[in-house]
């Protein structure tokens, strides 16, 4: 009974989360998808390193950090663009997007330099 209760609760929780998520605006969903994509790429790279060893360690680091870095920047973009966020009410979303693009470019310059 307890088990089925927890499972039911988990199901209920999952459903409510899913419905709440459906309410988010589309552009935030796009950003979330992008974040997911970046993290997935990072995970695959870590799995590869686990299999073949970390010989060109700098290459591994630059690959993983590129994914992680761009994910972090996307998260900060999402925060700034979210209308419900009172802190960034006055910040126009285009400005946030411009920052996102600029920081990504700088990140990727560093990554490419470190790639070797």
């Amino acid at each position, binding site marked *: 009974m307890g088990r089925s209760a927890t499972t039911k609760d988990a199901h209920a929780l999952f459903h409510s989360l899913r419905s709440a998520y459906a309410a988010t605006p*589309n552009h935030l*969903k*796009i950003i979330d*998808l*992008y974040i*997911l*994509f*970046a993290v*997935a*790429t990072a995970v*695959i*790279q870590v799995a*590869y390193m686990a*299999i*073949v*060893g970390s*010989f060109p360690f700098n290459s591994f680091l630059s690959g993983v950090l590129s994914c992680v870095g761009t994910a972090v920047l996307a998260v900060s973009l999402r925060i700034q663009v979210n209308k419900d966020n009172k802190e960034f009410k006055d910040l*126009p979303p*285009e*400005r946030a*997007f*411009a920052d996102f*693009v600029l920081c990504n*470019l700088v990140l*990727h*310059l560093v990554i*490419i*330099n470190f*790639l070797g």
Partner: protein
Amino acid sequence: MAQYLGFLVLVVLVLAAGCESAVFSPVLESHRSAALELFSPADGSYGSLEETYEALKTFKVLGIEKKHYITTSSCASVAQTLKSTSSVSKDYFHALRINSILNCDLNIEAFRGTESVLKGSLNGANSLIDFYFSIGGLVLLKEQTPEVDVHLVDADKIFRSIKALGQSDGRWRLNSNNPESSNNAAGLALEALAGVISLATPQIDNSLITTMKNDVLKLFDGIERYDDGTYYFDEKHVGALGHQSPLSASASVVRGITAVAATTSEYLNLPGDKILGLAKFFLGVGIPGSAQDLYHQIDALSCLENIRGSTPLILSLPATVISVTKKDQLKVRVSTVLGSPAPTLSVRLMQIFVSGTKDASVIDQKLKFDAVNGMHVLETLPKNIDVGSYVFSFEIIFDNPEHKKTYVTGGRTRVLVDITGVIKIDNAEIVILDGDHGSIETQKKLKLPGGNDVALSANHLQKLRLSFDLATPSGNAFKPHQAFLKLRHESGVDHIFLVGNSGKKFEIILDFLGLVEKFFYLSGRYNIQLTVGDSDMENSFLQPLGYVELDLPDAPEKAARPPPQPVDPYSRYGPKPEIAHIFRAPEKRPAKELSLVFLGLVLVPFFGFLAGLVQLRANLKNFPKATAPSTFAILFHLGIAAVLALYALFWLKLDLFTTLKALGLLGVFLMFVGHKTLSHLASTSSKLKSS
């Protein structure tokens, strides 16, 4: 040992045995070929008139035929110089000298003009060079054109003005301003004075001529000397005429005194030994290396050949190494410096000294004169002369006593002669003796000098004895400079022993018991080598004789080690041992297929992202439609793509600085279009909000 008994020990002269025994030979064929080589005309002429004269004079003295085109071109330049109005006395002097050799076909008018210029130059002369050229020119003019009247009226005055430049030590200054005096200037001055005397009408005062003769004798006080009997003049300072070598200074003086000797009526009392010494100096130079030195040498020798009253005669030996075995004969030649035959005389061998000792013997033997070759021959060597080095002392005696006044021979002439011969080697044998009794264990006869290959064996208790006899062709004992026995071990260590002698018998005994330590206790095969040699021994030899197997006791611990043998010095240029470098093992790389699989796997999330975007119905509806904003938008995206492409290029081949430069430019562009695009988007969205 080499006491050639029967010699009387004479008073040792100051000029000890060995010095003053150099051989001087008169001018040879090699001088002619050197002259042709050194005086080679460039473009058909020899350059200046002075050089042309030097070349022509040298060829004339040596008897070399002049080429026709040289004669014509030289004559042409002579004619041109005599006609030209810009010539100075120096040019006339050289031109007239050339003419005296070549006898060019010249116009008498040219000579008249020359005469007036030279007389004018003489009147205005105040330096020695001016006097020399003008007087020299006038003397030559007088010889070549008897029609032209050349005589000096105020000869006394000219004589005195030249004398005024002279100094008390016999040397001359070049002009009254220059205090430096030189022998070279003295030579020029004497030539000029002799010229004045020959041109003067009426005759110059005799007292002046006497002072000139005294100057010549004073000049000889300043002569310098080498140990081998040669005399020469040298300059202490670099004068106005440039640096003078002993050759040019001595040549100048010789020309001067020859000119003086030719003008005076009775013979000039020149010191005979010094004249002979000067002749030997010029001959001792050999073949000079430069054209000018060759000219000085040949010109001076031609002056000495004909010098009035003291003509030097040179005694020379064509060969100073005489072989007793081949029965060579000692030949002596007496000639003038240029090789012309001497007057009738006889050569006597007076004394023979043994080289390196004070022994001497008096011979007093006359040499037979061979008229065909012009040589004096010593038909048989004196009996007590055997193989060795000697100094022969010759004396020249004239058949006509009058010749003593006109020729100079220098008394006794000493010449170093080597008598060589084949040395007989007899009774050569090598023997192994038993230590205690001295009884012979092995005895082998040797054939020396010839090939020998003995095989002996000995132990440390035995002795080895080598003996042989040396005798000269006439049967006397002979002690060579070198008599060595060398034993060389297989490992390369060798030991050298001197072979001693008593009389004719040479013997060496090697007692191995005493030599064990010297041989470093090395047993084994020792190669035997015998060397007997001397500079006067025609059959000197260095022979391997065979080997001896030595059995020596073992070395005790403290014994000396044999010296390390020298490494072949060329082995350092051979290849060195190979170096094996140890590299870090390369990291293990994954299989190619695995990497490609993961490359594909990494791209999967990207496609997942695109699929998700489609599912979310992402669209480009907000893309600006109007021309200007859309352009900026497109440029914005292109700019980002360009930056990413730049990064790709950076990874592939660019370096950081180039990338940063390009990035800077692109960044500025991107900023501009991005600002434009995003501000347009912001304004449209705010318009939407407000509406």
